[in-house]
């Protein structure tokens, strides 16, 4: 059954978390903006195929991640070489550089988390997806989402404890992992 989507409302509701999720993946303001725009453009072309409006959020994050991975594969097949910063225009604006050092700290910490945990954490924190939506987005079982969230959070807590003030974040004294 075809669903009529109000694209402008969808953009308004989801462009912020999508961009932040894209930024966490790409670590580039320009690429994150491109990915976000591209995702909505794909939705505008394919919205007739969306059968369940309640799953639009998962669809958007799934699509953005797929586009990002597609870009990575394409880059490895046709590498683009960028000049060093001293020879080119500033790639990241000053506002981006100065944007929330705290956010940069968290993003940096996320890079140190195992890949399979990291993506689940990013969807949880940046996209604010429920465990069911994360399972749908990544096409993995719900139980796996929960165990990865649990382990990922422990890893993140440990990494952040090395950089953040101890009174803010400390490693759990009972860090213990369940079998997946």
């Amino acid at each position, binding site marked *: 059954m075809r669903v009529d989507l109000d694209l402008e409302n969808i953009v308004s509701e989801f462009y912020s978390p999508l961009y932040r999720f894209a930024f966490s993946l790409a670590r580039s303001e320009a690429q994150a903006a491109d990915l976000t725009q591209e995702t*909505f453009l794909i939705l505008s072309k394919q919205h007739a195929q969306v059968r369940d409006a309640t799953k639009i959020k998962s669809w958007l994050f799934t699509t953005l991640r797929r586009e990002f991975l597609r870009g990575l594969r394409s880059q490895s097949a046709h590498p683009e070489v960028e*000049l060093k910063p001293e020879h*080119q225009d500033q790639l990241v604006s000053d506002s981006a550089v100065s944007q929330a050092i705290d956010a940069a700290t968290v993003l940096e910490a996320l890079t140190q988390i195992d890949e399979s945990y990291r993506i689940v954490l990013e969807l949880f924190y940046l996209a604010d997806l429920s465990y069911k939506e994360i399972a749908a987005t990544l096409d993995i079982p719900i139980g796996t989402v929960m165990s990865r969230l649990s382990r990922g959070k422990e890893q993140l807590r440990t990494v952040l404890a090395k950089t953040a003030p101890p009174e803010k*974040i400390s490693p759990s004294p009972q860090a213990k992992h369940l079998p997946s």
Partner: protein
Amino acid sequence: MNSDTAKEILSAYRSKDRDGADPTFREALRQMESDADLKKWFDDQLDLDRTIRQKLAAIELPADLQAKILARIRGEKVRRSAFALPPAWLAVAACLVLGGLALFFSTRPGGSDRFQEFKSDALAMVSKQGGPDLDLETPNLTETQSFLREHKAPCYEALPSRLKLMETAGCRAFVWKDCPASLTCFRLPDGLLLHLVVIDKAAMDNADIPAGMKAMGDWHVMFQQKNGMLLMWASRAPMDQLKQVLVALRGVQGVQGELKSEELFSVRW
């Protein structure tokens, strides 16, 4: 349900208003009421979640992102309904593009479709075997500029003196998707060409233009925005040489006298 299982489940809990009604969490939340350690762990967990969300929420959004997205969506609808065959020169150039180059660029993710199309089409034009077709062949830059002005083609005249001293191979005025555009070809000291394609920036539908020089296949490409125009520099010259030339383009104006090739390629700013 033991404490470890409850913790694993509660790791996925976001807040009462979003997950409070989910039966998956109910039993774990109930258990927490009689398990002080679990309650303490859960409070710490929510604290960590809140801290991280707050920090990540500080990632600033580009001010015009929403407007750009909406513009692209609307633009896409317009283009699809008003689709027409491309100009003849595009078809000819496309046939001559070096193996797979056009395909590669047209399937690149990110960036606006229109900008990607322009990049692909412009590169197809300049990469034609034997060099691009030129309307005017002349070593004189001033003549190319006069020609482009006469033909109402965009012409970027604020070139640095160093570039003005270089010989040109010639120029061409053309139309890309109803937008006037121009091509000027400069002769580099080693005999290769440096191409400058100019078009009104508005033709790109507010697309984000990537900064920096890119190596794409055996071509090197760089974009600049100047005076409302989009400038695309492209050459097959080695990256090291081209870097020096393009860096020099930002440089000192008004250098007088003849430019030796070694000066051109040893500029430092």
